[in-house]
């Protein structure tokens, strides 16, 4: 077994790091932190370090064999998304494991002077829990991190552009093991781990592979589905950006398991950074001989292509994705035949989601039993979620299956915020899980353990893992309408129930929001929803009514309020909102009165004003002027 290639690289990496790196400074360089200037911060760090007489590099030189004596390096590396996007750009300094948040170029000099030169902590850049005011210097002390279990994201702080570092952390050990096994043994191992596909449906990955292995053919394909189109989900992007080699290794193991020799990584066009990092990772793996012919001298060959999508949500559906790779309109095909029998160019094909593939190397490296020990009996392992919306800590998290919503929202997320961004403790209304295919959960479900089956039971689904927290100021009909608008836009138009049904449902929701609905509207909405669910060809249409059905089920009172009382409890639907000036907040400054074009506002100076609902045309001019947030419902 010629695993010497891998052990040599690991030895070289360790040698360079141990001999020459004194300090490692890691800049989070996911899309979020880059947007906030992480790369400028990195360049400033290098400059300031050099000014302070320190040596700094952004890439390690493995060919450098000179002895530098006592002169040691500051290795200023970047990492993929560390999850804490809202607090970015994040800077982590080792040794010491110090984390600085919201670092700007202007802060760099102080960091170098205090922390690097004098070993002091820059207090003002340390994370402070918005709910408790507790300050945390290291990652271990931050609740957002220490309540998580990171498996897929375990290497989220490594340099994504360094195959050497990935290998030094045990990377490509999984494929090395797999190459010593038979294809059937690899399938069995993954089946034994209980791994279920993270794309949404939760089908056992090992079983999918076994079916594809059983299809006899001289050519087979492995496809990585990185067409993460669900609004509100970005875990696949983070994995592709932060740890592309784990996806490549997962695909190699899948290829070994089904006897394929070619693969495609299909990445959404909206993720340019992920495409760039993936291309670099493929090139590096080819350079070392981990992709191509006769890999590690075992006779196993695997060729990998990266393809950029062109912006069609339906391409997340596997048959549509295949059509897209073939250069066609991305429209789904009826199943069967399943891709396992007839997929890309009519050949047996396995399609797995990014997170699924990134979980595979660990199973082959550490064994199925270790993986199965995490999570629940029927949903083993962990799940990454994109925690967003009205919550104090937004970002990317990873928890074992079976974690409750309460732990996620309150302990990791730090609590629900109102529209002004304050944590009040009583604003939680709902969590939307699983994007346009998922459903809304209610406060009563806060203590339900989250897994594939429990969510299915309440009419939601894990989906790709978007968790959007919503506060009391959010109208659930508007939420349902948002998703309906999305699926109606993205429906490919091939089958009638989805194409026409989503359109009709959207029109019915618009009637409700406009205050023009009757009891018949609600009945028709529900009937249409069931018809679309039953009659659509692919997963997009089959699950498109879920947001409507789940809000109808759990927030019926809000629908009733809109339809029968012509009022919107969250005061979000403009046509139904009752204009009102909150007396407690109004200071009587008369700004609103002066700007009102129809003279609907009355009141004396320094006395709370009132608004005449009959006269008001809801133009919103008064609300814009009001400095005290006293005006609602316009």
């Amino acid at each position, binding site marked *: 077994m010629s695993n010497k290639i891998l052990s040599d690289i690991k030895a070289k990496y360790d040698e360079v790091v141990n001999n020459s790196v004194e300090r490692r400074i890691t800049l989070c360089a996911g899309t979020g932190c880059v947007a906030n200037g992480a790369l400028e911060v990195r360049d400033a760090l290098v400059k300031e370090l050099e000014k302070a007489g320190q040596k700094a590099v952004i890439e390690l030189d493995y060919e450098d064999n000179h002895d530098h004596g006592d002169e040691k390096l500051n290795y200023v590396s970047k990492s993929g998304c560390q999850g804490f996007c809202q607090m970015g750009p994040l800077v982590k300094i080792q040794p010491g494991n110090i984390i600085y948040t919201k670092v700007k170029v202007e802060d760099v000099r102080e960091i170098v002077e205090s922390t690097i030169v004098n070993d002091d902590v820059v207090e003002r850049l340390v994370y402070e829990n918005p709910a408790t005011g507790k300050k945390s210097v290291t990652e271990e002390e931050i609740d957002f991190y220490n309540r998580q279990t990171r498996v897929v994201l375990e290497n989220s702080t490594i340099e994504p552009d360094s195959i050497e570092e990935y290998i030094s952390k045990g990377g490509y050990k999984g494929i090395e093991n797999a190459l010593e096994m038979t294809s059937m043994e690899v399938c069995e191992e993954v089946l034994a781990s209980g791994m279920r596909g993270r794309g949404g449906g939760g089908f056992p990955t090992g079983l999918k592979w076994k079916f594809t292995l059983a299809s006899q053919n001289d050519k087979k394909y492995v496809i990585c589905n990185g067409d993460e189109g669900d*609004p509100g*989900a*970005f875990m696949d992007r983070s994995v592709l950006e932060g740890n592309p080699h784990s996806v490549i290794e997962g695909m190699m193991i899948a290829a070994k398991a089904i006897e394929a020799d070619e693969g495609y990584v299909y990445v959404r066009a909206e993720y340019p950074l992920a495409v760039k990092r993936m291309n670099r990772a493929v090139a590096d793996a080819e350079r070392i001989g981990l992709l191509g012919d006769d890999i590690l001298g075992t006779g196993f060959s695997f060729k990998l292509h990266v393809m950029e999508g*062109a*912006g069609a949500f339906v391409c997340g559906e596997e048959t549509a994705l295949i059509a897209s790779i073939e250069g066609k309109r991305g429209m789904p095909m009826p199943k069967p035949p399943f891709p396992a029998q007839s997929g890309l160019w009519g050949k047996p094909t396995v399609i797995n989601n990014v997170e699924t593939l990134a979980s595979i190397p660990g199973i082959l490296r550490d064994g199925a039993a270790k993986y199965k020990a995490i999570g629940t009996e029927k949903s083993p392992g962990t799940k990454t979620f994109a925690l*967003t919306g009205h919550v104090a800590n937004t970002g990317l998290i990873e928890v074992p299956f079976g974690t409750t919503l309460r732990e996620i929202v309150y302990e990791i997320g730090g609590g629900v915020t109102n529209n002004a961004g304050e944590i009040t403790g009583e604003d939680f209304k709902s969590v939307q899980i699983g994007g346009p295919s998922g459903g809304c959960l209610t406060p009563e479900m806060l203590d339900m353990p989250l897994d594939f089956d429990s969510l299915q039971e309440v009419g939601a689904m894990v989906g790709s893992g978007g968790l959007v927290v919503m506060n009391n100021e959010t109208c659930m009909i508007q939420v349902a309408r948002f998703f309906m608008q999305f699926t109606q836009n993205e429906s490919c138009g091939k089958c009638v129930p989805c194409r026409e049904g989503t359109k009709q449902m959207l029109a019915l929701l618009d009637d409700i929001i406009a205050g023009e609905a009757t009891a018949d509207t609600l009945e028709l909405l529900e009937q249409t929803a069931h018809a679309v669910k039953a009659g659509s060809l692919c997963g997009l249409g089959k699950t498109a009514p879920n947001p409507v059905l789940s809000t109808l089920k759990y927030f019926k009172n809000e629908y009733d309020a809109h339809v029968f009382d012509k009022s919107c409890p969250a005061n979000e639907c403009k046509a139904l909102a009752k204009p009102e000036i909150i007396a407690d907040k109004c200071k009587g400054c008369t700004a609103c009165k002066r700007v009102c074009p129809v003279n609907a506002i009355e009141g004396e100076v320094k006395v709370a004003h009132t608004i005449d609902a009959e006269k008001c045309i809801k133009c919103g001019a008064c609300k814009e002027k009001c400095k005290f947030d006293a005006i609602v419902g316009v």
Partner: protein
Amino acid sequence: MQETNEKTAAMIEHLAAVNKILEKYNCDESKLIPILQEVQEEYKYLSKDVISYVATSLDIPPAKVYGVATFYAHFALEPKGKYVFKLCDGTACHVKKSHSILHALYDRLGLSDDKQTTDDLMFTVETVSCLGACGLAPVMLVNEDVYGQVKPEEAVAIIDDILAKAAAAE
């Protein structure tokens, strides 16, 4: 005749970049999407001429190329502005009121859902489905630059800034 020759010569020059792209992909029909992506990169949009030319070169009906070009959101059949504002309307951005930013931009530039590009081809404002930076919602892209936690007045300020710089350059 002279005029026709000149027109042909201009067209050949105009399509030179397409030829290069077609060659790179060996005129392989299955590579239609990457071909169109690169062509759009070059010309900023897919004109009728270019669509017909690509179709003829790949030996497929123009309707098929047109079908693919209209199916995917990334392909533009009309020219876009020099500065393209892409406002994310994913769930997280939506619940954080991204539409108020959209309307502020529309108001500033006199645009609407039906007219998204200014007549001087300076600005295009459009919404896109999730950009995957939900932690920073609401998010906006101006060409390649990402802006997070944007407020309506900040978005408008970006336009004013661009216009001021353009005026100063003149």
